[in-house]
């Protein structure tokens, strides 16, 4: 009994040490909010087009049945990181042929129209979410956020924050490859 008890401090140290080691893992992001939408059908929503922009509006049914997985990006003209991300999204559309849909989140239509005419409009459909209600249906915590939606309308992937910088872009491209929207690039 005493002999086994002698190993108790070592056992406790190993348990706590393992826990601390897990906590120190640099790949673990404690701020990451797990999404409930992954592997679930996309939420129901229906949004009118942005007033003053030619692009048609967006609803749930537009996301499915496009023959390929699509990207849904939540953006706003008042969101500074969105501006940086815009170039990345444009390149995904123009260079890689990704189909991109947008939700214009809590934005004044006039501002959104100016923003799009200044930077270009890579979106094939844009829904204007003035109240932010569609944003809640998607469980977003802020803009920008990007989702990858499968052909059948299932949410496959969620990226919180701007897809800017090499690490973020390669992470997002990898998700697109996994979803089957992109061919894997030969290194």
């Amino acid at each position: 009994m005493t002999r086994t008890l002698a190993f108790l401090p070592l056992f406790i140290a190993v348990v706590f040490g393992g826990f601390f080691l897990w906590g120190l893992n640099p790949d673990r992001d404690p701020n990451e909010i797990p999404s409930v939408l992954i592997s679930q059908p996309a939420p129901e929503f229906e949004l009118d087009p942005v007033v003053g922009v030619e692009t048609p509006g967006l609803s749930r049914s537009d996301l499915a049945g496009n023959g390929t997985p699509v990207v849904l990006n939540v953006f706003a003209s008042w969101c500074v990181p969105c501006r940086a991300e815009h170039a990345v999204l444009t390149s995904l559309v123009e260079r890689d042929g990704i189909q991109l849909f947008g939700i214009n989140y809590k934005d004044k239509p006039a501002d959104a129209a100016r923003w799009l005419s200044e930077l270009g409009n890579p979106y094939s459909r844009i829904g204007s979410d003035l109240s932010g209600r569609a944003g809640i249906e998607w469980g977003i915590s802020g803009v920008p956020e990007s989702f990858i939606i499968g052909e059948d309308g299932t949410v496959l992937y969620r990226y919180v924050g701007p897809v800017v910088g090499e690490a973020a872009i390669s992470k997002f491209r990898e998700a697109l490859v996994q979803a089957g929207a992109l061919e894997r690039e030969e290194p």
Partner: protein
Amino acid sequence: MSRLMILLLALTLPMTAMAVEPDEMLEDPVLEARAREVSRGLRCVVCLNQDIDSSNAGVARDLRLLVRERIVAGDSNSETLAFIQARYGDYVLLKPPLNTRTYVLWLAPPAMLVIALGFGAATLMRRRKRGIATELSPAEEREIHQFIERQKAEKDT
């Protein structure tokens, strides 16, 4: 002194101020009280360790309005929570629910308490069983006797 007190009291007043803006509040005080109760259990997804009742973030305001909308529509408190939980996951609840992923979280503290009490009780029992010695053992008596003899012998020489 009284001036200092007044200053301190004036400084504490802003702390009690809530983020809930007047235009969000419901006319019915009973429903508003329920909305406040529900929103105190919901996490602001932007500021993470704050409830939406005290958060100034835009999403928190939207969620407060949504909570009130559901309550006015006739949802119970738990139905309102479930509505938001369906969109934001367990994470949005400040009190984590008991399920397979949170067993360790909920059961570890009572388990540790039980283990600690068990150890304490076992140690006490063992100590009591051994009892307190009232007399020396024969070996100890012999040892003391030898010691006294040796001392005497040293003194004599």
